[in-house]
């Protein structure tokens, strides 16, 4: 069951793609951050929007706008989306949830994504590790080199973090996984498909692979998303001993 904070956050910021339902205009990260800051002034959390009718004047002014009302009215759509994700073994976490990667808050502060969707063991997200980002179109030599980087990381017992895209990302992840290492894939699209991909299944159930994304699990490829997710890879990939 989702925490009330995460429910509100999803209602305000997530597209909740189920079927071909047209969704109202969700809050951008920046708008969401502002909303959180406003709540923080009154020492409140997002959950108050569904649990309390007694809101401070400033907050009420915002919540009573059509846009907020439309977004918050998507309860059943949320239920269905959560049902659907759950059926694919996809979890979803907001910043106040236990599963949420702590490194995002530490390193990204106000820019930390409001919602993370994932599949696989959440513990892996707090291990730090070796981050690899790179191009999709590369020659075979570079692929081999990158696979070796992955193997090296695995042998040093470092989690390998990459973006799951074709080219460098997959080469590094493949190298690490083949050598028995642990891998995090920070996807820019289609978590829904990756979660049921048979090549991933054994790694996921053995807690050797965790896939996460900050975009709706049903969302397809988008260049902007692919660029944005690199900073998430960096944020997970620090090699502190903690």
């Amino acid at each position, binding site marked *: *069951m989702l925490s009330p904070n995460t429910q509100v956050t999803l209602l305000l910021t997530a597209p909740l793609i*189920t*079927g*071909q*339902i047209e969704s109202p205009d969700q809050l951008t990260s920046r708008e969401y951050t502002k909303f959180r800051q406003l709540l923080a002034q009154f020492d409140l959390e997002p959950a108050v929007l*569904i649990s309390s009718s007694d809101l401070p004047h400033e907050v009420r002014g915002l919540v009573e706008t059509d846009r907020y009302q439309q977004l918050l*009215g*998507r*309860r*059943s*759509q*949320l*239920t*269905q989306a*959560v*049902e659907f994700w*759950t*059926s*694919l*073994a996809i979890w979803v976490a907001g910043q106040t949830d236990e599963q949420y990667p702590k490194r995002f808050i530490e390193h990204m502060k106000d820019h930390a994504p409001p919602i993370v969707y994932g*599949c*696989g063991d959440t513990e892996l997200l707090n291990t730090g590790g070796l981050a690899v980002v790179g191009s999709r179109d590369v020659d075979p030599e570079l692929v081999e080199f990158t696979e070796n980087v992955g193997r090296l990381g695995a042998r040093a017992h470092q989690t390998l973090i990459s973006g799951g895209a074709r080219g460098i990302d997959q080469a590094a992840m493949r190298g690490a996984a083949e050598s028995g290492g642990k891998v995090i894939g920070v996807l820019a699209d289609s978590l829904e498909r990756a*979660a*049921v991909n*048979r*090549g*991933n*299944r054994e790694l*996921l*159930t053995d807690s050797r692979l965790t896939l996460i994304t900050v975009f709706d699990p049903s969302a397809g490829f988008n260049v902007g998303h692919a660029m944005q997710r690199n900073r998430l890879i960096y944020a997970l990939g620090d090699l502190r001993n903690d």
Partner: protein
Amino acid sequence: MIFNSSRALELLRLSTGNPHAVFRESQEEAIRFLVEGRGRLLVVQKTGWGKSLVYFIATKMLRETPPLARANGPAILVSPLLALMRNQIQAAERIGVRALTINSENEDEWDRIERTIRHDEVDILLISPERLANERFRTQVLARIASNVSLLVIDEAHCISDWGHDFRPHYRLLERIAKALPQNVCLLATTATANDRVVDDLANVLGPNLQIQRGDLNRPSLKLQTIYLPAPVDRLAWLAEHVQQLSGSGIIYTLTIRDAVQVADWLKSRGLNVEAYTSETGDRRPELEQALLENRVKALVATTALGMGYDKPDLAFVIHYQTPGSVVHYYQQVGRAGRAIHAAYGVLLSGEEEKDINDYFIESAFPTRPEVETVVSALENSPDGLSVNDIMARINLTKGRIQKTLDLLSLESPAPVLKLGTRWQLTAAKLSEGFWQRANRLTELRRAEQKQMQDYVRLRSGHMEFLIRALDGNVENLTQPNLPDLSSAPDQLMVREALQFLRRVNLPIEPRLTWPVGGMPVHAVKGKIAPSHQAAPGKALCTWRGAGWGELVRKDKFAVGRFDENLLLACERLIREWNPTVEWVTCIPSLRHPDLVPDFARRLAERLGLPFEVALVKTGDRPEQKTMANSILQARNIDGALAIANGPIPSGPVLLVDDMVDSRWTITVASWLLRSNGSGKVFPFALALT
């Protein structure tokens, strides 16, 4: 919203068509609760109390005067047996409630219905719990309206509780949906029978603020009685004698479809005006329900397909041919009698076969661990997923078991399997131990319920008190009508008649029209079987181990090794009455029992005055067909196992004899071989159908 009491009464009178109708105890209270938006309500009231009036009138009132700041969309009703709601829907239409149903049978109307919903021209949408698992329904219908649903009605809510006698896996979806609804949504859950444990569980699932309204369980008009008659012939004889004498019309419940048909045929043969009513009755169901309502039939002989929601106020008797699995089932079924009349009979006949049948229902309710492992490993070896037919070709489980396993696994959360398009895939989730704990708990519960019914059968008196205690109801001030007990001994002459009847029945063998999915590689055939090469419609003498001849067939096959003279005479009579135009006789060969069937077929041919020819041979030893659990494996097992014997095949039509017919693949292939080699039409005949 302020509840308008006189408007509610007006709607009641309109919907019942009775200008003087008044609300029954607590009906108005329930409607008021919903219309005033006071939250979630569980109504536990016996069948016939009028639950449907409550939700239809509440729907109407919510829709015609939408309350301020509350959802004003359509109501949704989830019920497991929509087909039986026709009467209630008519009552709803009389007060202008526009009711629509979406189910697997009206798929061609879905587009139109979805448009109607989008234009807000539906007041109440009736769906089965299975619909909630349908992706199209969820994305195209539910997602659009759910945020604005004015009332969610969960009919037969005990199905949510896995403590309930009738837990239905798809209701688990409802549990999750009910949990996620805003606390202030109007919710009405109804059930006729829920003991304390189930009520507690429902409060747990449907929300902490669930209000509970409980009615009285006593039925003072019912005269209850139990009679133990182990042999089916005795019960058939008892029915023929007593159904005739009882006044009014009623229902006779059986546990299986086969029994319903057989009991109905028997009573018809005794001149009684009865009809069988089962899930296989199809389009005739409304007509039969109507005939019973209007007392145009003496009785319907029914399985539980005639169940929840069927309301005939003057039903004069409910007789059970076998003991149902639990007190709740029994109370619900017997409680259909005597709703609006002063006296009615509820007689439970108990027989020796019911334990096996109920055991089977209990044991097959969940897949076993080996079944789950087998299905999962088939999927593990197929990264691109498998259709149900693909799985059937790979593992030795019946289609039904495979389907049940997949269905139950896919309803888990998270689900270890997932259907994408037509193919099943494994997900990254493992099946939790909780699944097995739930399965074990339910199995144990059902065993206890079965045991409780056995105690009920042995009662001499205090039947109503026993039932009400079992349901945690109030047993003070119970009264019963002044009706005499019915005699418990069957008439011996009638018993002999019943035995004769059982020995005269025969069963059709329908020809197969297509080859199995994937075809028969050895014979190089697939798709449709050419009509000129299909078997003709055939006959079987009895059901394997069934009442009548079944037990003798089994004994002769395994203990004696030769089918006896009585069976031969019975077969001869059957074939002479059936009278297929045949010119010669042949049989299915067997390596395991090389003489059994040929010997019988030869003797039968002699009695019929026809030549017997060996036309078919076995090409090699194969596992017995009965060890193949599903139709595709049975077909593959017979593929290439039969061939035409040396020598010319007579060109006339032929009687093809076998001892047992199961999947019909053997006779299908044999007919195809015979016809391909010049014989005329092939009429299959078997001693027993399994």
